[in-house]
């Protein structure tokens, strides 16, 4: 009984039959070393090293666990390894895409005049010269950037009022009526419309109404609105729903009419969430290629009128530069321009996403008292 006075460091019965805490690190170290050795035999590359080490780690840890702790614990370890592994696998394409775009896009972006010139008059002859004689790659994305901004702005101008009013109807007037339920259901269904079908719809609509072959920036904006409206409705609806009812009732008690309550109390309270939802919706449609391809065509010149003539946009610019290089014999300058445009597009989308987060955080809805 004196042993209780002098504490002896030994593993308690509760933790007996468990792997020691350092077990994963030991196995990881061994797996990395053995993996490197195996890869050295068949030709080393970092990707293969990662894969082989991960498999060795899983086998090693699960095997050790099965020997020391029994089957149930081993299965748990296996599941943990698989789940963590799947997360790491999901990160691979993200890192790879961003890395590829950065490496290939920076030369294009740093080209002087890339953001300020269009492709008007840039022919294959210039590209051939730049490859053969080392002349600078000319031509830029100004027209595409301008087109993207115009088309997206027009689409936003169409979608936000319609989407916001629909959300207001669903939250403030709908009251679970059959019509409100139908709208909710079909808004959800609309979220799943393939983007190219939205483009075809806008094209078919304008072919029927205005005349066959009508392709302008406005048609593309209509196509993008079809994709954007459901996103705006969903996010605004969620935001209007979390506005506390006390605010509405306080306004009603003061004798304020419903429409003024909505305009002056409900929407201002939820405005940060609505704004961030709209920003996310813009981020979603700004990268859409297919609907613009079938509705606005692709142009090489600057077109500042959305209502007439073909119009370029960043995504279609990338697409055509890759698929139909300006100079078919020397596609390198075209692909450099395409990657530069891709980098600009990704930066735009990331900024929009970041902006949405900032808006949501900075002007967080003032719920409660």
């Amino acid at each position, binding site marked *: 009984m004196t042993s209780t006075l002098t504490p002896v460091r030994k593993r308690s019965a509760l933790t007996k039959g468990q792997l020691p805490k350092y077990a994963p690190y030991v196995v990881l170290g061994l797996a990395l070393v053995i993996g490197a050795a195996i890869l050295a035999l068949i030709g080393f590359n970092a990707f293969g090293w990662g894969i082989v080490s991960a498999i060795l780690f899983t086998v090693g840890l699960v095997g050790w666990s099965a020997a020391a702790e029994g089957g149930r614990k081993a299965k748990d370890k296996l599941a943990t390894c698989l789940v963590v592994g799947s997360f790491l696998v999901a990160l691979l394409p993200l890192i790879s895409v961003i890395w590829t775009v950065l490496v290939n896009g920076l030369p294009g972006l740093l080209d002087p005049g890339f953001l300020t010139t269009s492709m008007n008059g840039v022919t294959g002859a210039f590209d051939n010269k730049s490859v053969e004689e080392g002349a600078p790659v000319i031509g830029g994305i100004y027209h595409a950037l301008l087109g993207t901004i115009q088309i997206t702005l027009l689409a936003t101008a169409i979608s936000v009022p319609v989407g916001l*009013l629909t959300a207001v109807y669903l939250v403030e007037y709908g009251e679970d009526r059959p019509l409100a339920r139908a*709208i909710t259901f079909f808004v959800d269904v609309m979220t799943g419309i393939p983007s190219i079908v939205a483009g075809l719809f806008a094209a078919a609509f304008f072919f029927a109404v205005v005349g066959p072959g009508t392709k302008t920036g406005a048609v593309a904006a209509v196509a993008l609105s079809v994709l954007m409206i459901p996103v705006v409705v969903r996010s605004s609806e969620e935001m209007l729903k979390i506005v506390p009812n006390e605010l509405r009732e306080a306004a009603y008690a003061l004798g304020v*009419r419903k429409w003024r309550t909505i305009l002056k109390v409900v929407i201002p309270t939820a405005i940060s969430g609505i704004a961030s939802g709209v920003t996310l919706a813009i981020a979603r449609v700004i990268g859409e290629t297919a609907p613009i391809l079938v509705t606005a065509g692709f142009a090489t010149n600057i077109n500042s009128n959305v209502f007439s003539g073909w119009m370029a946009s960043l995504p279609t610019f990338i697409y055509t530069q890759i698929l139909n290089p300006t100079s078919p014999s020397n596609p390198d300058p075209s692909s450099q321009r395409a990657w530069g445009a891709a980098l600009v597009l990704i930066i735009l989308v990331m900024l929009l996403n970041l902006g949405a987060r900032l808006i949501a955080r900075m002007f967080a809805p003032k719920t409660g008292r």
Partner: protein
Amino acid sequence: MTTTSLTQSRGAGRAGDKVFSGAALAAGCLILAVLFGVALFLVIQAIPALVASPDQIQGGEGFFAYIWPIVIGTLIAAVIALVIATPVAIGVALFISHFAPRGLASGLGYVIDLLAAIPSVVYGAWGAAFLAKEISPAYDWLANNMGWLPIFQGPASATGKTILTAGIVLSVMVLPIITSLSREIFLQTPKLHEEAALALGATRWEMIKMAVLPFGRPGIISAVMLGLGRALGETMAVALVLSSGALTASLIQSGNQTIAAEIALNFPEASGLKVSTLIAAGLVLFVITLGVNMIARWIISRHKEFSGAN
């Protein structure tokens, strides 16, 4: 001053109420009208192709002979994408909801959401320029060692621009959709179920198997269906990655085509009956994805407790 504005605003207010509620109702109806209009205008513009004599359609054997190979191609690409994406997405969702440290979880969720933010044309460019080149040695290996399977029949495409590559790119694109929906559902598992399982001595995996997965099954199914809807309609990844051709069983040769890519590749230069044919193809795609999405939404709405999953 106040009294006059109050009395004045009474009449204006009543009219304002009418106008405002009318506008809200009209906006709601407009959405229904747009969805209806999508179907209507596609049908109107597609009719010429459907009633044209068979020899006028591309291929010369009528619309049906034209459309069915690309419908099959669309399904092949979507199925490849789902087979790859579903297990990974469920793993990622479990990682974020039940394995990752609490403080990190939302940040990691945001990282996965970044995958959804990257535009599809960038994925297409990445697939064509990077993935296809890197993966073609693996196709050679498959053709040499598994060539007895019809789907891996050689000779493998030298450029790697095959339907399997397109499917892999598609799987990356549907992954964030399935992940974010499943994650929401896993997080809604009743805490008491989880704690009861753990209290009975279950390991974490057994707890997930007994409490989380049975609870989330309908949600996972509908998430996968929504991913399927996206994969069916995705255009750019396939248009840029796949070097298309006739329908073939082998996944590692060039060949096959999807509806969306067929439209994107041909529509800008099309005229006359070709436009109608492509719009009719779009109509077929619309009907397929509409069906898939409605089934998915129906499953979700049957389980109202998953409403947060939308």
